[in-house]
């Protein structure tokens, strides 16, 4: 927890301790925040949004990309509207400072829940994207076989599946290899998100 207001920090710490959050570490503003986060490996970071030290945390997001942590920001009254929108977006959690001492447990619990949901949705999305990409690869490999080897669609699929079973790999892998041999690099769009020659 990084806070400018000692009283607020104390109140939050007491509330969290009495609500069963085992270990609250208070960190002085301006200390080596990155090293502290890496060393303590906290489940959640609570910080004052008015501190410039936020930029240091912005920097470690990437380092900790594999084990991201929810961050709760306590903001001032002027930023009320911003806080609402940020919470609605559900990516990162902002909360108003005047609510802090009373409802701190709810806020922290909500932040963790929002964060977990966000991570879950994100990983599901990645999974679906992967599946879609595989489907597209197989479709294109089939089209390639039908066009170049005069196969029917069931024949093309059977051909891919047989290869996959024989080599103990996935059909999508076989499809990718086939397309790679057939069309080396030349039709890459380079944009990263689209597959080579997708428009065909």
């Amino acid at each position, binding site marked *: 927890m990084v806070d400018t207001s000692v009283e607020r920090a104390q109140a939050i710490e007491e509330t969290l301790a009495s609500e069963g959050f085992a270990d609250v570490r208070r960190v002085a503003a301006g200390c080596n925040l990155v090293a502290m986060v890496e060393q303590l490996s906290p489940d959640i970071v609570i910080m004052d949004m008015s*501190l410039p030290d936020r930029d240091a*945390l912005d920097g470690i997001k990437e380092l900790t990309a594999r084990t991201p942590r929810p961050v709760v920001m306590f903001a001032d009254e002027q930023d009320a509207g*911003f806080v609402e*929108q940020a919470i609605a977006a559900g990516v990162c959690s902002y909360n108003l400072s005047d609510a802090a001492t009373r409802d701190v447990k709810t806020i922290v619990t909500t932040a963790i829940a929002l964060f977990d949901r966000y991570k879950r949705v994100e990983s599901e999305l990645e999974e679906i994207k992967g599946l879609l990409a595989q489907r597209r690869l197989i479709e294109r490999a089939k089209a390639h076989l039908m066009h170049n080897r005069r196969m029917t669609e069931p024949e093309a699929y059977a051909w891919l599946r047989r290869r996959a079973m024989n080599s103990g790999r996935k059909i999508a892998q076989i499809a990718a290899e086939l397309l790679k041999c057939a069309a080396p690099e030349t039709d890459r769009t*380079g944009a990263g998100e689209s597959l080579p020659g997708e428009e065909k």
Partner: protein
Amino acid sequence: MNGRSSHSGNTSRLKIGLLRLTDSAPVIVACELGYFAEEGVQTELMVEPSWANIADKLAYGFSDAAVILPPLAFAITLGLRQPAQSLVVPFSISMGGNTVTLSRELADEVQTIALRDHVPLVNALAATLTPKPERPVFAVVHNYSTHDLLLRYWLATAGIIAGRNADLVVIPPQRMVEALQTRRVSGFCAGAPWGEMAVRAGAGTTVATSRDIWRNAPEKVFALRQDWAESHPGMLEGAVRALLRAARFCDAPENAAYTAALLSRPDYLGVDSQAILSSLPGAVPAMNRTVFHRHAATFPWRSHAQWFLGQMQRWGLLDAPAQTRTIADRIYRPDLYRRAVAATGESVPVADVKPEGAHRSTWSLDASPRPIAMDADYFCDGAVFEPSD
């Protein structure tokens, strides 16, 4: 944070995010001297404590525009830090102004070697660091910053590679003095006036500035949310004209004292006006002057964008397959600049890109209606960056 309105009660106000930096000058001047108002643009300035706040408020649509670092504008548009928000850059704010400031003892060592062996300071720095057992730590103000890219570029010319034989950390500029004093870092790269603040506190010595790394290096830009820009085309043009006028004001040495006093107010930078003055035009010594207007400083050069994006790729901040030219064209919008200033008589560059680093002295830029007098733009290693057009 500190919402301040030049006019209130209007729903379509342009909300501009700023940090406590010298490059906020044109926006503050345009607001305080009524240039925005004269163009019919109602503004609200939001002085923020961190780049993360600037970025989040743009990303969530809570501000409309900001004085921002080009690499951060790219990161926001590309969603490199969640969530993504498309930005456009119709105006460049400044050139130069950053300093590389080392702890005093390290700087003494480096300067002694540089004088003795007649080598560039960065090579002297490499020579002092090599025999030391611990990796040196340098600080920058944000992951996606001009400071990060310029410092990496400079260090690399002497074989100091961040992540291999040196570490880069992020520390807010207000904490740099303390970080030097406690030996947490050997040095830092930050915008004005923070290097000067460290020098005044007796904590550090400035050994290089932006101009020693890249002469007239582009620094901050004025970025707006694309959706706001598209729904307020008239206000966007008015804002660009007001900023152009303010840039001209800030570039005049006779206005420097006034600008410094204005910026030093507690609700803006809140630091000694003398420290700000040293980074404004007309400063003596002219070590780290920020350029706001002359040498086509306000034009959003797409070659600047391409260079930054290329450097982001070089250091793994951006995926290699990303099409830097497409991204640069999407975000940097010289067409919006030209449309806005067409009626003002301001000379506007004919091309959208120029070779970067090709000029060792003054030169003349093809512009309409009159050519623009340009200054040197070379890199410390003599490289020339040829943009794709």
